[in-house]
C-alpha cells in the first residue's frame, strides 16, 4: 500500500486529496499508467505529464523514479511559491 497525494488542479480533477493504492508498480510512470487505466478522471489528470511534477517521500523526483520502499507519492502542477 502506498499513499498517493494530489495537489492543486490535479486534486480537483481527480476529486480527492489523498488515497491509499495497492500497487506493485516499479516506477512512478508505471503507477501513473495503472491510475489512468482506472477511470476517466485519472486519464484527464495525467493526460500531459510534462505539466506535472512528482515527489516520492516528499522529495522532488522524475517519473522514471523507482517506487520500491516508497511510502508516499504526490502529484501536482509546477509550484508557484514566493
Amino acid at each position, binding site marked *: 500500500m502506498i499513499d498517493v497525494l494530489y495537489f492543486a488542479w490535479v486534486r480537483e480533477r481527480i476529486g480527492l486529496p489523498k488515497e491509499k493504492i495497492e500497487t506493485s508498480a516499479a516506477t512512478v510512470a508505471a503507477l501513473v499508467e495503472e491510475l489512468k487505466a482506472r477511470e476517466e478522471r485519472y486519464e484527464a489528470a495525467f493526460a500531459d505529464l510534462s505539466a506535472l511534477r512528482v515527489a516520492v517521500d516528499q522529495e522532488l523526483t522524475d517519473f522514471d523514479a523507482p517506487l520500491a520502499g516508497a511510502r508516499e507519492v*504526490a502529484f501536482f502542477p509546477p509550484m*508557484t*511559491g514566493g
Partner: protein
Amino acid sequence: MSDQGGLRSGLRVVVQEAPFDFGAEAERFAAGRTDLGAVVTFTGVVRDVAGGLEGMEIEHYPGMTEKALTEIASEAQARWSLGEVLVIHRYGKMAAGDRIMMVATASAHRQHAFEAAEYLMDYLKSRAPFWKKESAGGDQSWVAAKDEDEAALDRW
C-alpha cells in the same frame, strides 16, 4: 546553529496560515549579532495584476513544504557566508496587499546577504510546494508557473 565559514549560523523556517508581523520579525532578526553588518529582507505581497482580484488562496504540501524550505535555506547557508537566515511563508486565504512571505539574510557584508536572498527567492518560487489560486470576477484559476521562474534557477 551551525558554524558557517567562521560565522555562527542560525536558520528559522516558518510555515503558517496566520499573518506575520513583518516589522517585529525584521526587528528581531539577527538582533544582538554585532558581527553581522548586512541584513537583507524581501517580502512577497499579493498583487492584483489585472484589477478585480477578489482573493488568493495558497495550497501547500504539509511536511514537504517545511522540508523543502529548510533544504533550500541550508543550501544558501552552504553557498554564502550567512550569520542568520529566516524564511516565513503563509498558506490559506489572502487578499490583495497581504504579505505572503518573507526571507531575511544576514551576513558580514552585503554581497552575501543580497545574493543569498535572491537565491532563496528563486528557489522557493519553483521548488517549494505551494500553489496559488486566484479569484476574480467570480471565477477561480490556478496561477501558472512561469518559464522565466524555472530559467532563473540556471544562474545559480
